[in-house]
């Protein structure tokens, strides 16, 4: 009896908080058929938002993956100067509010900021453009790859790498032939998390964007903009597009989690 009460209580909570609201948005989006949704998603403003989101993701993700793997490797295999400071900097983006991250980037690149004043002197537009938005996104999504890869590297140990080097492999060969294949699931997992965060970031990017429709709005900013302008069709369409992307990412991770673990145990 108590068991069923608990089971259905929990399921009701999940339904009211997660499933019904998301289902309702899906329903509202397609209330008038697929035509208006297609029109809303192919409007110049929406296309611009999709393109900007993809551009920022295409900048932030590769950089964070390469530097994330490198940082994890250094933390695990070499002595880093002041390791506690490195650790703090890696974890800080998780402990900071996205708005505060946005503000920190804003201040650094503003007209009187340490980097911003030089950029303004050289007439390079940075703050309120896609460049600052990409930097804010990089900051926000920095920890994912490092934190996925580091424990795997630690657990892996150095025996195989040492063996490879004894057999005459260079450090690079040993990394690409021995280390990278062993950590590839962690790298892929971390990359997916980075993509999800980069595509969905709102708070940090909002603060460093000029918020001009059709120019500096990413998809999440566009959703907010459409809601404030009482354009529910466009808001729901863009919101549902983001939700579908995150559902795909989620199912990808669930499948990866299974196959990755299977390979680990073999």
């Amino acid at each position, binding site marked *: 009896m108590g*068991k069923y009460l*608990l*089971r259905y209580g*929990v*399921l009701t*909570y*999940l339904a009211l*908080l*997660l*499933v019904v*609201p*998301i289902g*309702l*948005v899906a329903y509202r989006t397609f209330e008038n058929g697929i035509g208006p949704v297609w029109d809303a998603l192919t409007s110049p403003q929406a296309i611009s938002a999709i393109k900007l989101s993809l551009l920022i993701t295409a900048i932030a993700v590769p950089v964070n993956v390469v530097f994330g793997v490198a*940082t994890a490797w*250094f933390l695990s295999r070499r002595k880093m100067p002041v390791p506690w400071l*490195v650790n703090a*900097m*890696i974890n*800080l983006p998780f*402990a*900071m*509010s*996205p*708005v*505060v991250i946005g*503000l*920190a*980037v*804003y*201040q*650094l690149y503003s007209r009187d900021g*340490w980097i911003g004043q030089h950029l303004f002197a050289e007439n390079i537009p940075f703050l309120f453009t896609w460049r600052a938005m990409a*930097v804010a996104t*990089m*900051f926000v999504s*920095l920890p994912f790859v490092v934190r996925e890869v580091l424990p795997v590297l630690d657990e892996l140990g150095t025996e195989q790498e040492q063996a490879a080097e004894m057999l005459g492999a260079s450090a690079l060969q040993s990394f690409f032939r021995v280390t990278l294949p062993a950590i590839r699931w962690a790298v892929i997992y971390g990359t997916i998390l980075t993509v*999800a965060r980069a*595509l*969905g*970031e*709102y*708070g940090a990017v*909002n*603060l460093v964007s000029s918020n001009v429709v059709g120019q500096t709005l990413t998809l*999440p*900013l566009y*959703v*907010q903009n459409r*809601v404030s302008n009482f354009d529910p069709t466009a808001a729901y369409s863009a*919101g549902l597009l*983001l*939700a579908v992307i*995150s*559902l795909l*990412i*989620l*199912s990808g*991770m*669930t499948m990866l989690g299974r196959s990755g673990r299977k390979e680990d145990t073999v």
Partner: protein
Amino acid sequence: MLYLSLLVGLPVAALISLSLHSNAWSTVLHDQHTRAVIGFTLFVAACVAVIDLVTGVALAWVLVRDDFRGRRLVNALIDLPFALPTIVASLVLLALYGPDTPIGVHAAGTRFGVLLALLFVSLPFVTRAVQPVLLSLESDVEDAAACLGAKPWTIFRQIIFPAIRPAAVTGMALAFARVLGEYGSVVLIGGNLPHTEIASQVIANDVENGAPQAAAATGLTLIILALLVFLALGVVTRRWSRHG
């Protein structure tokens, strides 16, 4: 190292130096509204942490010990709030609990709406922390206790809870810290009204109103509060692991 310093260290240093400008701190510490908002943020974060503790442990228990059709789907669903962009979380809650609500619950622009949004984004923390511990806990001790006549509640209190306590508290602390800095999910459903604002919204508004110094001081207050939470968590879990 250089990359980290450039990307994280330098902006944070700029933030700290900005907050040291003129009288940013005294403005923040004496401003009635900012203080009220930080107080409300702490209060609502505490509420969320407690509610998450109850629902999170219940969810973890149902997912590990119970068996029903669709359990795997529910298990995958738990991570959805992590994958979903925060602004979409706000949008979907606005659809069900906003002005066009089909069920008659008007939560837009209320503190209840803010609470809902924060419960949404912090849903996975406790569940995901407790689940593996519960999974590794053999159920034979529970069975033995049941055979000896212990009631379910006694079993939970005497056997399950002590084992999952460190994990549950870790999950609560993570949820609390997340709520302290949350922004996107409350933007639409909170409606940006004075009584529903949480700290991040005050920071964003200060920046928009040309007061970045005050925003920086409030932002650093948030960082310090989050660090205090993690520090306390470290102390508590270390003490428990020593006694356990």
